[in-house]
């Protein structure tokens, strides 16, 4: 197990620390003393961060709000559509294999390819405009570009939420519904009072995963709309763009801020979910048996049942 930790230290921890230090350096430029182009990057302290909250801030805040907007809207829509999909799949007995196979396809299509595919669909002479009978220039700057990205993202990821919620639904014992029916609960009451509270742990974990994934969104807006487009530029795109233009200092500062943002959201979720994100990782089964005597946390329960 230590090799894994070693590798992760090298590929994750070390670069993160590097990003922090790098974000304190400025871009290479003319050395004011000698007049030559300096080989080393000047140490600028917190200047990169000061710029973000000062003059160069517009682009950062635009990317920040884009990222946040995409995350909130896509995860919201995905959750609704995914939940509906899971309920349908759970009820359907015939054709389940077909549904399961087709639901995995959006997940398997590479995001980059789906970006290109949706650019084709949203082309000015493409199928989207033909179906709508409109002439929207989807891939140009403007709110419609955001809509295009959101539709493409939701298509790809709603089925994933559907899968995870379905796993949660299959855990709910039938007896609970029978008892509710005997007590006179209608379908709607059953959904609100039984289904939703019982799939909530699975759903929340799915939402957490989707949120963290949406916050680092890059491929889709980059390919569907393009780099350096204000309406869709996310924090990942901004950092990548700066780095590819050899402005490593500012790029690292953006990357660090994105990292902190993701970290805070994750922390918030973990507090909301309670402690048990990892589930019961107690090794020997003896401890597990003991756990069963105690009221098991819902998250751990769903993990066991999905096994």
């Amino acid at each position, binding site marked *: 197990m230590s090799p894994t930790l070693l590798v992760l230290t090298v590929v994750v921890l070390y670069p993160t620390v590097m990003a922090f230090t790098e974000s304190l350096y400025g871009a290479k430029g003319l050395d004011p003393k000698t007049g030559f182009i300096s080989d080393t990057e000047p140490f600028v302290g917190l200047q990169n961060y000061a710029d973000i909250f000062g003059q160069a801030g517009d682009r950062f805040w635009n990317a920040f709000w884009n990222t946040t907007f995409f995350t909130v809207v896509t995860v919201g829509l995905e959750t609704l559509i995914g939940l509906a*999909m899971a309920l349908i799949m759970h009820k359907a007995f015939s054709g389940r294999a077909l549904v399961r*196979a087709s639901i995995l396809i959006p997940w398997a299509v590479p995001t980059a390819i789906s970006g290109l595919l949706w650019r084709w669909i949203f082309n000015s002479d493409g199928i989207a405009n033909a179906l709508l009978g409109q002439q929207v220039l989807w891939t140009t700057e403007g709110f419609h570009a955001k809509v295009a990205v959101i539709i493409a993202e939701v298509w790809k990821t709603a089925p*994933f939420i559907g*899968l995870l919620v379905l796993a949660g639904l299959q855990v709910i014992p039938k007896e609970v519904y029978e008892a509710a029916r005997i007590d006179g609960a209608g379908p709607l009451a059953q959904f609100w009072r039984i289904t939703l509270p019982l799939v909530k742990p699975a759903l929340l*974990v799915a939402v957490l995963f989707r949120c963290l994934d949406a916050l680092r969104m*890059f491929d889709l807006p980059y390919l569907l709309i393009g780099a350096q487009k204000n309406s869709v530029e996310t924090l990942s795109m901004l950092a990548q763009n700066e780095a590819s233009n050899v402005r490593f200092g500012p790029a690292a500062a953006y990357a*660090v801020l994105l990292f902190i943002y993701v970290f805070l959201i*994750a922390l918030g979720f973990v507090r909301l979910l309670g402690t048990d*994100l990892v589930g019961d990782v107690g090794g020997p089964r003896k401890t597990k048996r003991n756990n069963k005597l105690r009221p098991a946390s819902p998250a751990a329960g*769903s993990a066991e049942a999905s096994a």
Partner: protein
Amino acid sequence: MTATVKWRTWLLYLGVAAVVAYCLAPFYWMLVSSLRSTSDIFDTSLLPTSVSFENYRAVFSPSQGFGRALLNSLIVSGTTTVLALLLATFTAYAMARLQFRFKRLILTLIIATSMFPVVSIVVPLLKLFTDIGWINTYQAMIVPSMSFVLPLAVWNLTTFFKQMPDELEEAAMIDGCTRGQAFRKVIIPLAAPGIFTTAIIAFIAAWNEFLIALSMTNRPSIQTAPVAISKFTGATQFDIPFGSQMAAGVLVTVPLVIMVLIFQRRIVAGLTAGAAK
């Protein structure tokens, strides 16, 4: 009463059809568009008027270098998967079986890294790799890819190992095996389906990677397939070659779709076991 039941069944079928259509329609559109000839690429009929493999021939024209890109993708994602699986098998076994201090914390940290924004490590690594001359090399793509494939593999495998009863090794050890032998001769063969599923999921994750491959390369001969497709050139500079992009998209996706169709049950089990915790 029977009327409402019938209604419900119909509604359910309608729902199932809607879900299937939602998932497949865009993919179907990619397939149909790839089979159109250049002259009727902008047709919006549901079936191609005349099936043409023109786009597929264009994809494999030497100027696009797509064959090479496919090979690059295979090398990068294959190596990443094998390395990650090798490391993850041992780690996951330790996580599932052994008791040691800070185990929860370590597992949480490993899982947390898989949700890490990739760009946060791409930026510093891009600078580092530029300095040590690793740009346009396979290792420049494999090393950063480990950052998300390895945690994914550890997490999936830990769940698989935990499902296997302890008695397996206990029996083997009573029969004279050491812990290592029990792991090698009993656990690994029995966990093969789990390891295999994890390998598929890890491979798909590595295969679909775009940001790292885009940032770490600038020479076409080393680019992976998704990057190469995004840089396909048309007849003129402003002409986006949609037809060949769709054809290449189909070629990149179809292996994954076939894998998904064959192993769907296992993949669903793997995905939900890893995530529905």
